[in-house]
């Protein structure tokens, strides 16, 4: 019968403390639950390393393109150096294949030119270029977690 009591706008100290502790209890309970949701983001990834060795530079003669199926990259070896272009389509993750003019995705028809730039289809981004480094034993290392700007080429001895 709230409307029969005239001055209900003022909350009594007892009510305030009661409501506050009740609210605090609910917030803490929800907080505990929300904290446990962190479990869904894994701390360990049970999968292949995203950084991998691809062998010595001699294995990639000048002017060749090598498709590495498992690592899902194309390794280009040109006059001005090595570069690695991802073979994962930026639209929905299918594997592109190389054509005379560049790359083509079989799933939704995205087309890329020879530099991995989108020239057709629904792909929202260009194909990624990855960082290449050389390990102490001389073999090349591609790090597919590190993207580099298009046109970054590496020269190795």
């Amino acid at each position, binding site marked *: 019968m709230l409307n029969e009591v005239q001055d209900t706008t003022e909350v009594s100290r007892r009510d305030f403390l009661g409501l506050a502790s009740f609210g605090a209890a609910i917030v803490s309970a929800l907080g505990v639950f929300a904290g446990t949701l962190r479990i869904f983001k894994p701390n360990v990834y*049970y999968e292949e390393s995203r950084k991998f060795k691809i062998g010595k530079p001699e294995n990639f003669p000048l002017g060749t393109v090598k498709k590495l199926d498992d690592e899902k990259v194309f390794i280009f070896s040109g006059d001005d150096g090595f570069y690695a272009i991802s073979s994962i389509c930026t639209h*929905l993750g299918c594997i592109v294949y190389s054509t005379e003019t560049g790359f083509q995705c079989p*799933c939704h028809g995205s087309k890329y030119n020879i530099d991995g730039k989108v020239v057709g289809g629904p792909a929202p981004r260009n194909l990624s270029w990855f960082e290449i480094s050389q390990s102490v034993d001389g073999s090349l290392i591609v790090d597919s977690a590190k993207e580099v700007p298009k046109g970054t080429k590496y020269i190795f001895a």
Partner: protein
Amino acid sequence: MNERYRSGVSEFIDNIKNLQRSFLASFLRSGKPTSDKSRAALMFNNFFLHIQGVKTHINTLRPTYTFGLGIISFFLLIIVVVSGVMLMVYYNPSIERAYNTIKDINYVVFAGRLLRNVHKWAGEGMIIFVMLHMTRVFFTGSYAKGREFNWIIGIILLILTFGLNLSGYMLPWDQLAYWALVIVANIIQSPKEITDSLGITQYFDIGGFSKQLFLGGYTAGQESLTRVYFLHIMFFPLFLFIFLGVHFWRIRKDGGLTKPENLEQVGGDTGYASRPEKTGGVFPTFKTYGLMELARGKTPAVDKDIENTVPSWPNLLLAEFAVFILTLAAVIVYSFFVDAPLREPANPLIPENPAKAPWYFLGLQELLSYSAFMGGVGLPGIALLGLALIPYLDREKGHVGIWFSNRQGVIEAVKALFVGALVNVGLLAFVVNFGWFRNWWPNIPQLLITLVNPGNIWVGFMIAWSLWVMRKGSTRMGAIAMFTMFLVSFLIFTYMGTYLRGPNWDFFWSKSQWPVH
């Protein structure tokens, strides 16, 4: 011999003799359903039946009002659960063994292939019948008068049905499953399209984060299969049953299914609706009415049953039983002749060409081929939000329980059907023949394509059309136009994605024209 000195042994023997009767009496506490009173008691004393009313309105029993669509969806769910529990005994969710266990189910396990087919087709049947049920509820205006929130629960159940089907599709770990998983993971990642366009991906990569949560890593593998399996057998079913319980309970509390304000009995009603006996009511005759005979919105008159209701036992239950048997028979016959697909084992190196999602997502996949974000997240989000808000944006209550509300509603639905089909097909024909922005201006920014693409234009047209209908009529008429167009485009996009798209998502009139490779 005096009764008082009867030994315990003879009493024990009597109890054994009476066992059948006493057990049955304890099981069916109200006795045989021979009078209205015991028929009512049968309904409300039984845990499984008490969710339904003691009495049922004859409008509910009219086959042409409900077509039994909701109850068919429920029975399909029962079939899916039973067959699914059996399949669980053999299926093993590991990427090494999943495919082989499915092969075993198909070729070795007793009746395994039939059970798998039943599970698959009943599951996909749920999509069809849940959507048809939604269509029925919409066109009879049954989302008004306190049922607004139940409509939203229905939308949640629709989403869960899609989720269950999709997660189940990924479990066999064949080529279909693997590439569907990859595509779904990338749809989840598609907000990246927006963050990339705004250049904030490195600070706020919501797309990449969600993809990692779904896959349990960066690429599809064992962790992903574990998560999909968890979604399929625990998460989605758990919430499906919770929401289904609320869905049914609310229907009951709202006084059963909707019915027109002024119902006239027609010839067909008398056949199945036997008139209640006036002598043996639920309560003693000196009472004028019983509590459970009260129905919302009606005041019962003295010595007269609630208008147009009949005892649920046997009228409703027999009808439901018949629907169940027909549903079961249809599923088994279909499953006997049509096998659930199983392709080669998953191969992460070779995408299928074309890589197609299951048929119920091919409409979305067509939209995806314009823009991953709009097709996968934006437009489905708008569509679901729009569906959920219908009861709040159209609050007219005049025509609840009548198909298409009135003559005007039929006209608007037919108009929307033809105009929608024409515009939708025209739009698709334009895209197929002339391409879109990137074909004309290769350097166009992605954000422009995300914002202006055929999918968005279609949704914009639907909204514009229904607003125009609303302007001269009522909100209900606008809603009818909108919903009709939604259904039409769902069908057209799905047909397009299923039959007219081939390798590289190019357009082909038929599968026989696909290039050989």
